[in-house]
Structures are given as structure tokens and as C-alpha cells.
């Protein structure tokens, strides 16, 4: 996408009749800012290791009505047991394939903005935030009222399909009222090989609210996925995030997590698997603003072939955030000599009475462990697969919902079967 491509698509966006006029000025403002800055380059510290040529060197067009399915879509191939599924297909909400979870308000399109009186959150952490505001197409908001406990996980299933190179820009809001709790899964799949998704998710947790957020990026290994997640936590709220990513030629996760109330807790975890020439990048910022909060970041990557990855974790402990308890861990397993990982856990501490730990390690499979297993009769492939599985177990165990964990483990095991080499 060069600038003129973006301009053409933006004109189409603005001229669509089915978007409210109220949103146009917001789009225009964001887009003109984006034009000033352009796509990030490797000269920027935050993008040093991530090459965006799979976006800049291709052209994508926005998804039109005709990109919605014109017949039945078989979603059984995307099955996860025991969840309520809402389907978004090439950026279009498909009501007929969706079940509406009880106990929550599901707002589609611009309804959320109506509800919040157009009070619009437009962050500018990166040009992709601006791009999301300019092009947001599939809006989906989940609002849980106070004291409501939503038992069944709610899954947004994003299907990318077809041979058209589409640019899809979801914008999701998750608002949990006081003392409510829910599990939210974003599940990105589909057969499209050329697809650029720039999604933004805004999570707000009121006091004592609790959200389990699971993100699955298992779409084709040739897609481009930019993810911007912003999490705002009030007192004693609890946020857990787990990302399983094995899809995407390019993946970039940006999480900005603000702990704004005392006693809030967040655990941000990710398991990334890459092969071929995939490049999957995870950037996480945990921002401790108040006392007595705790947080952890725990990311692991398994890299095969020429794939590469980035972990950039930053934990900020502001002046007022005394008694912070935080940890960062990044461990990476290189299954090939040509795989490359950049790991950069960082602490930025301005308070004095805090407990912060961080660590990082990157290496090949443990030769001693491999010999140990083989000396007990396990063939070299099984032994290696077992070691990789052992490496990931700690993270897989964090997925509490059985159906989702079973799905992820299946996916993980088939990845292992294809990517373990003698």
C-alpha cells in the first residue's frame, strides 16, 4: 500500500452511504494525521526489527458488501466447543451464523459510538491506531453490566476468505461493569492468502471486573496482521490475556495496558509458533500508575526455518505505583539455525518500593534432554516434539476454558508434527 493506494481506499470509505456522517470527521482527522506520518519504518525504535514490506509492497482494497458470503458458509471447520460464536466474515458481521450470548449487550457497527455519545477514543501510539480510526469497518462491542457473570466464553470468529486482497479494520470494544466477569476470544482464521487486518480492541474494566481475553491468530501464514489492544483497568480488576499465534506472514501485537486503580492485576501471555519466513512480533507495555498492582508478561516463541520474531516488553512503574509486583519473562526456542529472535524485556521504574523481575533466554533444544529421552527409546522426532511441548506446557496450561485449550493444543500438536525435523 503506497500513499496513493491508501488515498483511493479512503475516498471509497468516506463515500460509503452506510456509514454515519458523524464518523466522517473522525476518520478524516485520523487519516490526514496518518498521511503526515506514513507507515512506520525501521528507523523507529519500536519498529526496528519489523519489516512492513508485506503491507507496503502489496495493494489491498477495503472490503465491500460483495465480499460478504453470498451463500452458506461452513463454519464447522472453525469449531471450538462450548463457546458462543459471533461471525465476522471479511469484515462483515454475519448475523445468521452468529449466536447472541445472553447476559451481555452486543452492539454492532457504530452503535457503541451512539451509546457513548461519540466520545471517541483515538489513541496515537502508532500510525496503525490512526489507520484503524480512518478505516474502521467491522465494529463490534460487548458490554457486560455490573455484577453480571458471563459463564460461556464469547468468541468473535474473524474469517478471512477468498482471493481478493482485502484490508479489514475491525474495532472492538469490551466494557465490563463493576464486579462482572467474562471470557472473550478473538479467533482469526480463514483461507485468504492475501489479507491485511489492522484491528483495534479497547478493553475497559471497572472495579473488580475480570476478563479473560484469548486471541488466536491461526489464519494463513501469508497474511498481515496488526493488532492494537488497549486495556484500561480500574481498582481490583483482573485482566488475563493469552495469545496463540501460528498464522501470519507478518504479525504485530501491540498491547498497551494501563493499571489505573489500586490492586489491579494483569497477566499478559503469549505462545508464538513460526516457520518458513513468518515474522511475528509482540510488543507489550504494562503501565503501573497506582499502588498495590501486580502484573506479569510471559511470552514464548518457537521458531523454525527462516522465521523471525520479536518480543519487546516494557513495564513502567510510575512514581505513585508503590508496592508494585511485576515480572517479565521471554523464552524462545530456535529449531533452526537460520531462525532469528529479538528479545528485549525492559523495566522503567520511578517508584522505590517495588518488586520487579525480568528475564529472557533464547536457545536451541537442550541436547542433554534430547539424549536422555532418546536413551529411553523415544525416536528423535517424538523426543524433540515432547521437548517443545514441554517448553510450551506452562503457557498452554494457562488457558482455563477446556474447549479453547483443546483447540489450541490440537493446533499446537499439528504444528509440531509438521515442524519437527530430525
Amino acid at each position, binding site marked *: 500500500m503506497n500513499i496513493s493506494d491508501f488515498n483511493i481506499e479512503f475516498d471509497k470509505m468516506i463515500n460509503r452511504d452506510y456509514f454515519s456522517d458523524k464518523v466522517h470527521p473522525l476518520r478524516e482527522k485520523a487519516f490526514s494525521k496518518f498521511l503526515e506520518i506514513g507507515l512506520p519504518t525501521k528507523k523507529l525504535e519500536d519498529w526496528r526489527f519489523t519489516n512492513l514490506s508485506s503491507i507496503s509492497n502489496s495493494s489491498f482494497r477495503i472490503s465491500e458488501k460483495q465480499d460478504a458470503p453470498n451463500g452458506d458458509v461452513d463454519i464447522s471447520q472453525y469449531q471450538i466447543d462450548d463457546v458462543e460464536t459471533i461471525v465476522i466474515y471479511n469484515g462483515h458481521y454475519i448475523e445468521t451464523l452468529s449466536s447472541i450470548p445472553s447476559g451481555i449487550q452486543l452492539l454492532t457497527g457504530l452503535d457503541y459510538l451512539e451509546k457513548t455519545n461519540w466520545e471517541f477514543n483515538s489513541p496515537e501510539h502508532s500510525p496503525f491506531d490512526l489507520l484503524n480510526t480512518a478505516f474502521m469497518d467491522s465494529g463490534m462491542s460487548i458490554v457486560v453490566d455490573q455484577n453480571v457473570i458471563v459463564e460461556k466464553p464469547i468468541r468473535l470468529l474473524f474469517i478471512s476468505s477468498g482471493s481478493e486482497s482485502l484490508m479489514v479494520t475491525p474495532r472492538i470494544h469490551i466494557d465490563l461493569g463493576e464486579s462482572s466477569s467474562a471470557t472473550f476470544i478473538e479467533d482469526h482464521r480463514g483461507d485468504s492468502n492475501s489479507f491485511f487486518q489492522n484491528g483495534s480492541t479497547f478493553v475497559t474494566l471497572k472495579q473488580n471486573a475480570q476478563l479473560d481475553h484469548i486471541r488466536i491468530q491461526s489464519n494463513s501464514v501469508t497474511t498481515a496482521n496488526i493488532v492494537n489492544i488497549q486495556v484500561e483497568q480500574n481498582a481490583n480488576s483482573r485482566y488475563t490475556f493469552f495469545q496463540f499465534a501460528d498464522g501470519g506472514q507478518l504479525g504485530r501485537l501491540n498491547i498497551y495496558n494501563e493499571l489505573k486503580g489500586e490492586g489491579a492485576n494483569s497477566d499478559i501471555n503469549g505462545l508464538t509458533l513460526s516457520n518458513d519466513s513468518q515474522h511475528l512480533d509482540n510488543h507489550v507495555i504494562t503501565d503501573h500508575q497506582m499502588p498495590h498492582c501486580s502484573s506479569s508478561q510471559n511470552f514464548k516463541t518457537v521458531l523454525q526455518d527462516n522465521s523471525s520474531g520479536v518480543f519487546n516488553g516494557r513495564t513502567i512503574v510510575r512514581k505513585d505505583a508503590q508496592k508494585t509486583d511485576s515480572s517479565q519473562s521471554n523464552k524462545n526456542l530456535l529449531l533452526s539455525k537460520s531462525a532469528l529472535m529479538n528479545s528485549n524485556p525492559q523495566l522503567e521504574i520511578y517508584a522505590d518500593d517495588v518488586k520487579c523481575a525480568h528475564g529472557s533466554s533464547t536457545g536451541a533444544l537442550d541436547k542433554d*534432554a534430547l539424549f536422555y529421552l532418546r*536413551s529411553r*527409546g*523415544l525416536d528423535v522426532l517424538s523426543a524433540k516434539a515432547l*521437548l517443545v511441548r*514441554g*517448553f510450551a506446557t*506452562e503457557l498452554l496450561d494457562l488457558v482455563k476454558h477446556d474447549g479453547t485449550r483443546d483447540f489450541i493444543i490440537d493446533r499446537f500438536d499439528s504444528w509440531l508434527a509438521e515442524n519437527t525435523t530430525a
Partner: protein
Amino acid sequence: MLDIKNLHAGVDGKEILKGLNLSINPGEMHAIMGRNGSGKSTLANVITGREDYTVSKGDILFAGDSILDWSPEARSLAGIFMSFQYPVVIPGVNNTYFLKAALNAKRKHAGKKGLDAAGFLKLIKEKLIEVSMDPKYLQRAVNDGFSGGEKKRNEILQMLTLEPTLAILDETDSGLDIDALKIVADGVNRYRNADRSFLVITHYQRLLKYIEPDFVHVLIDGQIVKSGGKELALELEEKGYNWLES
């Protein structure tokens, strides 16, 4: 059963075993003693097929076949087992899962059907009793957080489960308390029969009181310089190794 002929082996270009000969017949218990660094573990690792070591000369025959080109797993499946001097910790790999996978690999190799979870549990419970191990160790990751003695018992548990015909015990007695030593020795003695052979590496005569060897060998600088009966161990305990050096 095991025939080692003029074995020269080393690591990173450094020769450690320098012409070692050893024959073990079915049912025999052999002990190897020798100073730190004399090459005992190297021998055990070379027999079990560790790829870091290169054999430059000589041969190892197991049941008549040269096994030098065999992978570690092929040797294991053929019936060779080593209790590691330093058992490896494998985080995240469940002990039960590992043992079951190993046993079923072995059963499959022998043309038998793999055991299901229930069948395996029944079998392993009996073996646990033999080494006085608490079943809770099965739920942990392999050797993760095990004490030195617990790791050694876990090795013997694996031996009893996999039923090798040649068991190499590399300092299995080191780190065991007196009771544990007795338990391990009893386990080994019960396991002994006319078809099973042992190569026990130890520094202490103490173990050989419980596990009576048929032969004792002294390894110095990569060669067996003296062999004898169990009384040789007593002599070594008394005199040390100096008198054997040329």
C-alpha cells in the same frame, strides 16, 4: 552379551578411552571403579550412543551386532539402559507421560500393543512400590525439583519399567542415603536374573556389599588396568589407585 574391543573414543578431539576391552556375559554383574575423570561415564555414554562422543577405533558388539552406528533409541529398544550419573531435568514434560511413551515405544518395538492409561497406571504403581517412591512424583515434570536421591530412584524406576537386558548404573549410589541405597540395591537384586547383565560404576565398596559383583574392573586413563573378583573392591578401598599406575 556385550563385547567391547580395543575401544578408542573421545570428545572434541580429545581421546578419553584409549583401547578398552570388556566382555559381559548374560547374567553377570560387573563393577567399574576408577578415579574421577578416568573415563567411566564416557564409557557408559559411548555404549548408549551419545552423539557428542566419537569412536575412533575398536568396536562395541551387543548380542553379536556392532552397534556403533546405532542411534541411542535403537540401542535402548535393543535392551541397553543407562542410569545417568546426572539425570536430566526436563521442565514441562510430565513424568507419567514420558514413562508411558518410553514403555510403549519399547512394547511396539517388541511387537506388543501399547498400554492404555489404565494399564500403564497399574503397572507403574507396582514398580513405584519396589523403589518406595510416592506416586506424586509421577505428576511432576521429569526430575523437576527432585532431590539428588529422588532422581536416582527415578532412574531405577525407569529401569524396572523398561526392563533392559543390559543396565549400566553410573554412580547410582552417589547421593543416596543409607535407606535409599538399600532400597535401590534390593530393587537391582530382585531384577537380576540369568538373562540380565549389569555394569555398575561406583566409587564405593559400600554399594558392592549390597550388590555383589561377579567382576570388578579398574579403569585408569581410559584403559582397564586390572580386573578381579569382588575382593578387588576391598583392596582398592584400602590401597587406593596409586599402586595400579605404571
